[in-house]
C-alpha cells in the first residue's frame, strides 16, 4: 500500500511489551488517518464507562497519509483518548517531530495501554521499543524535560512530554512538544500522567511509502517555496494569530472578565501589534511555512510563545492588559503543561465566582499575582481551590453551587475558546456541536458570519456552513493531517490537499471524496459519546447559558441589548441535525450510520443506547 506504512505500534506499559499490528488499505481509505484512526481504535477498543484516568484508557498517537512529507504544514500529529475532562471522545493535534519520525519508524499510529509501575520514558525507533526510567524528570516542567531529552537523544528526535499538570492529573493537561507546541486540550496530558508516562521519544529512518516519491518531492519543494512567498506578501507571520484580537474586540467577540464583556478599550495593549513589537523569536512546527509561535519576554525575562487564544483568555478574560503579565501566565501554563484555553477559562470562571460570592477566596479580575498563585495551585493540585479548579470549569461550578454553572463557559465540559458569542449564533452553534466540546478548530464560522451574513440570523445557511467547515477542518485536515493556516490566511487553495494525497497514495480523489470520511468520523465520535451518555439529548449541544441570559447582554457597544435566544438557537440546531441526518437528540440515525458504512458500529452502540 502507498501512503500508509500499514502498521500500528501497540505498547502495553503494564506488561512492558509491544507488538506491530497491520491494517488493510481498505481500512486506511475508510478512516484516512489522524483523528479517523484514533476514533475508530478508541471506539472499538474502549469499554464504555471506564475511568479515563484508569489503566483501561488508551492513548492513541496517530498521523495521516500526508504527515511528515515535505509539503506545506504537514508536521502535525493527533493525540486522542477518552477525555478525563469531558468523559467523551477527546483529541487534539500538535506540531511535533514525532509526525515524521513515527512514520519513518514504520508506523501510522501508536496505541499506549496500561499503566507503568514507575515514571517511564517510552523510546521507539525502527527496530525496537524500550521502557526507560523517567524518575529523574518526573516532577519537572515541560521545558526542563524537553532539554533533558534533547541532551540524550538530540534535537532531531521526536518528543511528546508532559509537565506537572499531567502528572497531577489536572483534567485539562496537554501534551507538549518542541518546547512551544501543545495539543490534546481535553486532558490528553492527564491520560499520559495517569499511565506514569512522562515522555515518548521517537526516532525513525525508513522511507515513508509513497506512490510517486520523486513527484511528491518536487511538488512539496515547489509548493513550500510558493507558500513562503505568499506569506511574506501577506505579512501574516508578523503577528500570527494575534492579529485577530483587535477584530474580535471591534465586533464584540472578545472574552473579557469571564466572557461578561465582549470588548474593552485597553484591548489594544495586548494585541498583535504589541506582540510584533516585542517579539524576540519566532517558532513553528516541522514543515511549517507560516510560523505562528511568536515569542516575547515575560515578566521574568523568559521566552513565552503567544497566540490569540492564550492572549485572549489569559489576558482580557482575566482583566489583564499588561502583555508581559499575559506572557508570564502563558509561560507557566506551557511549563506545567496546562491547556492555555482551559487554563484561562478556569481562572476567569473562578474570579467571576468569587466576585459573585459563589466561591471562597479573594481573587479579582486584574489580579496578576493572584492568578499566578492559583495557577500554581492548580498544577500542583494544592489545597481545596487548586484541587477543585484542576477538575475543570464544569466540575468546579458543580462544587461551588450557587447557580455558578450558568456562567461556567464550557460545552460538554470543555472550556470555550476565545470567541465571545453573546450575539453570534452560528459561532455559538459551532461551539455547541464541536465533537470534543467547545473548541474553535472544528468550524470557525465567525468571520464568515460577521462579514457575509446578517449577524442576527439563525438561518439554515449558517448550519450548512458549520457542516461545510467541519468537513474541511475537523474532517479532512484532522485526518490527512495538515495545519489549516495556509488555506484561509493566505489563500492556499483546498485543491492542493487532494493533490498531495493522490501523489502519495496513488489514488485519484477529488476534494469531495473526503467528505464521506469526514462525516463518518463525526458520526462515530457521536456514537462514542452516546455509549458514554446513553440518556443524552440536544441540550448537550447547547452553548453556555450566559450567552442567552438577557441580564448578561452588553449595555453599550455594537451589540448593546442583544443576546442569543434559546428558541431560535434550537431551530438552528435542528437545521444542523437535519443536514447531518441526526435525530432530535443529535444522534446519527440508523439510516445515516448505514449510509456512512457504520452498520456494525451502530449495532455496538445499540447495546448501550437507543438509535432512531
Amino acid at each position, binding site marked *: 500500500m502507498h501512503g500508509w506504512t500499514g502498521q500500528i505500534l501497540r505498547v502495553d506499559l503494564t506488561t512492558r511489551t509491544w507488538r506491530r499490528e497491520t491494517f488493510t488499505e481498505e481500512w486506511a481509505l475508510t478512516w484516512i488517518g489522524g483523528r479517523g484512526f484514533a476514533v475508530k481504535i478508541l471506539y472499538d477498543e474502549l469499554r464504555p464507562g471506564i475511568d479515563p484516568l484508569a489503566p483501561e484508557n488508551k492513548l492513541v498517537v496517530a498521523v495521516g497519509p500526508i504527515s511528515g512529507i515535505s509539503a506545506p504544514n504537514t508536521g502535525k500529529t493527533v493525540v486522542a483518548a477518552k477525555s478525563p475532562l469531558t468523559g467523551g471522545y477527546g483529541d487534539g493535534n500538535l506540531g511535533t517531530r514525532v509526525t515524521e519520525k513515527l512514520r519513518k519508524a514504520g508506523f501510522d499510529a501508536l496505541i499506549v495501554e496500561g499503566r507503568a509501575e514507575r515514571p517511564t520514558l517510552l523510546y521507539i525507533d525502527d527496530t525496537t521499543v524500550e521502557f526507560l526510567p523517567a524518575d529523574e524528570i518526573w516532577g519537572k516542567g515541560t521545558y526542563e524535560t524537553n532539554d533533558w531529552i534533547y541532551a540524550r537523544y538530540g534535537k532531531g528526535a521526536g518528543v511528546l512530554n508532559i509537565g506537572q499538570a499531567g502528572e497531577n492529573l489536572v483534567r485539562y493537561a496537554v501534551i507538549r512538544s518542541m518546547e512551544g507546541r501543545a495539543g490534546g486540550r481535553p486532558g490528553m496530558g492527564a491520560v499520559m500522567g495517569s499511565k506514569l508516562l512522562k515522555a515518548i521519544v521517537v526516532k525513525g529512518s525508513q522511507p515513508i511509502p509513497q506512490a510517486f516519491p520523486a513527484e511528491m518531492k518536487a511538488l512539496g519543494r515547489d509548493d513550500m517555496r510558493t507558500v513562503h512567498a505568499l506569506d511574506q506578501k501577506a505579512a501574516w507571520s508578523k503577528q500570527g494569530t494575534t492579529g485577530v484580537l483587535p477584530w474580535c474586540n471591534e465586533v464584540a467577540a472578545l472574552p473579557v472578565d469571564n466572557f461578561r464583556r465582549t470588548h474593552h478599550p485597553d484591548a489594544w495593549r495586548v494585541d498583535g501589534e504589541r506582540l510584533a513589537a516585542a517579539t524576540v523569536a519566532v517558532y513553528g512546527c516541522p514543515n511549517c511555512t507560516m510560523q505562528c509561535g511568536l515569542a516575547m519576554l515575560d515578566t521574568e525575562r523568559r521566552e513565552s510563545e503567544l497566540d490569540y487564544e492564550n492572549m485572549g483568555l489569559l489576558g482580557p478574560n482575566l482583566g489583564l492588559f499588561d502583555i508581559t503579565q499575559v506572557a508570564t501566565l502563558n509561560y507557566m501554563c506551557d511549563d506545567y503543561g496546562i491547556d492555555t484555553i482551559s487554563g484561562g477559562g478556569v481562572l476567569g470562571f473562578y474570579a467571576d465566582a468569587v466576585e459573585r460570592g459563589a466561591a471562597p477566596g479573594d481573587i479579582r479580575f486584574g489580579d496578576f499575582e493572584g492568578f499566578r498563585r492559583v495557577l500554581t495551585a492548580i498544577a500542583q493540585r494544592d489545597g481545596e481551590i487548586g484541587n477543585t479548579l484542576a477538575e475543570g470549569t464544569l466540575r468546579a461550578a458543580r462544587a461551588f453551587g450557587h447557580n455558578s454553572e450558568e456562567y461556567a463557559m464550557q460545552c460538554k465540559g470543555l472550556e470555550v475558546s476565545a470567541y465571545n458569542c453573546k450575539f453570534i449564533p452560528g459561532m455559538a452553534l459551532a461551539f455547541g456541536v464541536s465533537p470534543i466540546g467547545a473548541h474553535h478548530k472544528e468550524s470557525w464560522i465567525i*468571520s464568515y458570519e460577521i462579514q457575509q451574513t446578517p449577524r442576527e440570523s439563525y438561518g439554515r445557511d449558517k448550519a450548512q456552513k458549520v457542516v461545510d467547515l467541519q468537513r474541511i477542518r475537523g474532517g479532512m485536515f484532522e485526518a490527512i493531517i495538515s495545519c489549516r493556516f495556509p488555506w484561509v490566511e493566505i489563500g492556499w487553495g483546498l485543491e492542493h490537499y487532494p493533490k498531495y494525497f493522490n501523489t502519495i497514495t496513488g489514488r485519484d480523489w477529488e476534494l469531495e471524496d473526503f467528505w464521506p470520511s469526514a462525516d463518518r468520523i463525526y458520526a462515530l465520535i457521536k456514537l462514542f459519546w452516546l455509549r458514554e451518555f446513553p440518556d443524552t439529548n440536544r441540550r448537550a449541544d447547547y452553548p453556555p447559558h450566559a450567552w442567552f441570559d438577557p441580564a448578561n447582554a452588553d449595555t453599550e457597544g455594537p451589540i448593546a441589548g442583544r443576546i442569543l435566544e434559546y428558541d431560535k438557537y434550537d431551530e438552528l440546531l435542528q437545521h444542523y441535525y437535519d443536514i447531518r441526518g441526526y435525530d432530535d437528540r443529535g444522534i446519527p440515525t440508523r439510516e445515516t450510520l448505514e449510509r456512512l458504512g457504520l452498520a456494525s458500529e451502530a449495532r455496538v452502540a445499540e447495546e448501550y443506547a437507543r438509535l432512531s
Partner: protein
Amino acid sequence: MRITVKLIGGLAHRFGAGEREQEVPPGTTAGDLLAALGISDPRTVLTTRNGWGIAPDEEVAEGDRILVSPPFSGG
C-alpha cells in the same frame, strides 16, 4: 464627512498601523475606501463598520469607524 479607518494584522505592516481619521466625499463606499488603500479585491479582507460587517457596495456615513482586517481562520 469624516470617518475613522483602522488596519489590523498583517495589513498594518503593509499599509501602516494605527487609526486614521479622514475626510471622504458623500457616496463613498467601503469598496472605494479599500481601493484607495490599494486593496483591489474586497473579498481578500474583512471589513466592518462600527462592529458589523459591511459589504463593498455599502456607503459609509459621517462618524463611521471602519476596520479592515486580513482573513483569519482562528487562533
